[in-house]
């Protein structure tokens, strides 16, 4: 009997491009962010190959500068920021809170189109002269001195900002007004809490980067002087405005990944998460305190000593909620029933890498140390540990975890575990040497470097080739599994969330009847429907180590 779900409810290209179904829109996002991920990845590959030898191996300085700029722009604005919220968040938030859709389905589709338009502008900039300002667009390099295609790029990022804003707006309103009966705030999955916090940042921060880049664009087009010292403007003001968004933007990337991990760990340890309210609260705390720390990117710009002290102090405060999360995840494992399924491997990988990324943040927040390691490879390693080791591990882990729900199929388990371990090893080999490079004094964004740095650079490039393999593998077997994977069933793990109470893949309206929530989150003991009670027939399909 053919079962009707959101994938086969309607057919044809129009049914996808004009859909207002959050699940289909999530898949549109999945496709487009994957394209940008591989574009950014291609640039990264070329960067690593180029840095094999001190004099540079592959490209001219101009091209190298364009490569790292375009790598940053593609990865940050067009992959990392939308990745988890727009793909997993879009797909799961209505399912998790028991709603038929997001509050504003048309705005949701519009958000994707805005992203695509912004993306086209940026790709146009890449194709016609490239972009060589660094993803940070520091003035006056970006506003006057750069000869590359800065204007289309800033217009593209400006436009893309509204996509982010609309997604965040939709999530906030949905979480407030669309919850199913019984779904109280403290029964919300932690994934939803994390997305609530993320959306706050999107709403409050994104408009500032939009206006800032608009001013840079105007400055370039009409020779205005907001940030141009030759016309009385101030380049430091640009940095304040830029980092007011771009520091919290890091939390846009990492908070949703933390949400994913907070779902995976209780599921595969089969016990309630340790300190639910502390994890939920720490998400909000990170979102709020994250807005108070931006000028720690500016300790050596000549900002006032008083401001530097303030921002360093506040930066240390934001470490606390992050630490709370790590400790709570670890404690959740205590006396659990831990399975070694792929999402759990990703969760462990995430904790390990985020731990290093987060702890090295303490080095950079330290004023006395920052005067040495600022703008060196130490910083590069640090933020890759957070954004790639953290956010991307969370994203890929989340994709695996919810893949059965999204496609109705299971991925090949053994292959997936291999890929997860490959990613973890490759990542560390790539980026750990860069911490040492940084402390030794190698500045970032160098197309050529003194020969004494070569060994570590070669090591890093070698690691990157393993890392690349780790990304290609899931891409291949996940695609393969869409057609050939084992049929998953409603709740293969089993997990406790509302999204697992509907079919896989879910029907267009998500639930046949509006569900009513009567249980506490992550409660395995009092959920006979999960089939885990002793002696009860198991509803979960056997999930062996095939």
């Amino acid at each position, binding site marked *: 009997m053919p079962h009707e779900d959101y994938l086969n409810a309607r057919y044809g290209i129009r049914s996808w491009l004009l859909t207002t179904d959050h699940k289909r829109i999530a898949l549109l996002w999945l496709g487009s962010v994957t394209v940008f991920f591989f574009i950014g990845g291609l640039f990264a590959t070329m960067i690593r190959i180029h840095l094999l030898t001190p004099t540079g191996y592959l490209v001219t300085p101009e091209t190298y500068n364009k490569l790292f700029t375009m790598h940053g722009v593609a990865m940050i604005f067009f992959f990392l920021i939308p990745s988890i919220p727009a793909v997993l968040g879009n797909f799961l938030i209505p399912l998790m809170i028991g709603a038929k859709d997001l509050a504003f389905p048309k705005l949701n589709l519009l958000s994707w189109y805005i992203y695509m338009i912004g993306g086209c502008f940026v790709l146009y900039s890449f194709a016609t002269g490239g972009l060589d300002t660094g993803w940070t667009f520091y003035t006056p390099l970006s506003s006057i001195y750069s000869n590359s295609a800065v204007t289309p790029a800033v217009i593209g990022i400006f436009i893309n900002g509204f996509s982010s804003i609309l997604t965040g707006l939709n999530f906030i309103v949905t979480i407030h007004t669309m919850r199913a009966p019984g779904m109280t705030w403290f029964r919300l999955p932690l994934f939803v809490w994390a997305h609530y916090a993320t959306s706050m940042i999107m709403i409050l921060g994104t408009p500032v980067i939009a206006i800032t880049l608009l001013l840079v664009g105007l400055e370039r087009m009409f020779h205005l002087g907001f940030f141009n010292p030759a016309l009385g403007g101030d380049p430091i003001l640009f940095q304040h405005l830029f980092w007011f968004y771009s520091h919290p933007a890091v939390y846009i990337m990492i908070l949703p990944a933390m949400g994913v991990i907070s779902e995976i760990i209780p599921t595969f340890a089969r016990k309630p998460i340790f300190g639910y309210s502390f994890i939920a609260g720490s998400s909000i705390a990170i979102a709020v305190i994250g807005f108070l720390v931006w000028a720690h990117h500016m300790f050596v710009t000549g900002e006032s000593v008083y401001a530097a002290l303030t921002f360093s102090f506040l930066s240390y405060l934001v470490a606390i909620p992050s630490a709370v999360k790590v400790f709570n995840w670890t404690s959740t494992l205590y006396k659990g029933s831990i399975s070694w399924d792929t999402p759990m491997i990703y969760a462990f990988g995430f904790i390990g890498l985020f731990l290093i990324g987060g702890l090295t943040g303490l080095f950079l927040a330290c004023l006395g140390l920052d005067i040495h390691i600022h*703008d060196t490879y130490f910083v590069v390693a640090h933020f890759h540990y957070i954004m790639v080791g953290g956010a991307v591990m969370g994203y890929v882990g989340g994709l695996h975890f919810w893949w059965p729900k999204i496609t109705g199929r299971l991925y090949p388990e053994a292959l997936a575990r291999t890929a997860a371990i490959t990613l973890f090893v490759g990542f560390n080999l790539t980026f750990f040497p860069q911490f040492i490079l940084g402390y030794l004094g190698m500045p970032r964004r160098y197309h050529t470097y003194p020969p004494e740095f070569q060994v570590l650079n070669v090591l890093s490039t070698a690691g990157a080739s393993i890392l690349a393999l780790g990304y290609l593998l899931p891409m291949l077997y996940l695609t393969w599994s869409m057609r050939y994977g084992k049929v998953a069933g409603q709740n293969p793990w089993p997990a406790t969330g509302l999204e697992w109470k509907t079919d896989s893949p879910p029907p267009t309206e998500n639930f046949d009847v509006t569900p009513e929530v009567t249980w506490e989150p992550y409660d395995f003991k009092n959920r006979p429907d999960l089939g885990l009670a002793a002696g009860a027939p198991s509803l979960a399909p056997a999930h062996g180590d095939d």
Partner: protein
Amino acid sequence: MQSQLPFSPEQASNFAPHVDDLMLFITLICLFFAVAVTAAIIIFFFKYHRKSPNEVGVPIHGDSRLEAAWMIVPLILAMGMFGWGAVVYVDYRHAPPDALDIYVIGKQWMWKAQQPNGLREINELHVPAGRDVRLILASEDVIHDFFVPAFRVKMDVVPGHYNTMWFRPTKPGRYHFFCSQYCGTNHAIMGGWVTVMEPADYAAWLSGSSGAEANPVVAGEKLFAEKACVTCHVPNGTGRAPSLNGVFGAKVLLADGSTVVADEAYIQESILQPNAKIVAGYQPLMPTFQGQLTEEQILALIAYIKSLQSQPVPATGSGIAPTTEKR
């Protein structure tokens, strides 16, 4: 005495030991937490591995005392890091009043320094050991950053602002300095050497008795940078003008297909009437230096270009005629 941390550059300023101590302090704390958490995960991972398919974990919902502990303890440690870091930073941002003032100007893509007596240097900085030195930093175009790893200090050079930084070199020697704030195409080669000298040597060098100024090759090298020749004549051949490595005495292929031997006369002509002979593959972009250079300076430049004869010739961008086309 401080012992050197592994994986750290040489310690050559008053700040270096402090920064390395901070590094050690924070590393040890972080290592403790990293090892503790990782060990816990690995132990739980094996100890509580699921034994039967329907097994469920023990429902433990949390513990407020534990939560309080792991908020307060890290907070105290973090405040320690903040406090110590702040002490070093505040010291760094307040130069001693009697420091030696040296002006450093960054421009795309070179550093100009001016010693207290007016002596100018390009991509070089000479400082006396044991003396507080304050650099007054200014930029002519975009944001740069003056970074000396061996001193563990850096400061952005921001157009429209005067930033200052200070240090007290402790060990004579030559140390790399870098531009550490991305500033455009040749950001990576915008660096040079800090030379820390014994105070007596420094005084002698300042008064010119070291003979550096008298050497035409050195003077020519300075001029080559000062007149911004180097911004186009990039040694690795990637600039808007041909690399001059190995050019002297070689045959140069011109735009009209003919070749010319690069001798003193050709170089002089190229400096004063750049458009007289254009090297194949390049645009006539070079401004004339007629009336802007003294004879002595032209000679110095020629001497410098001669000295490049032994430098490696880049595969492309040199302007030297391929040997096969000699006949």
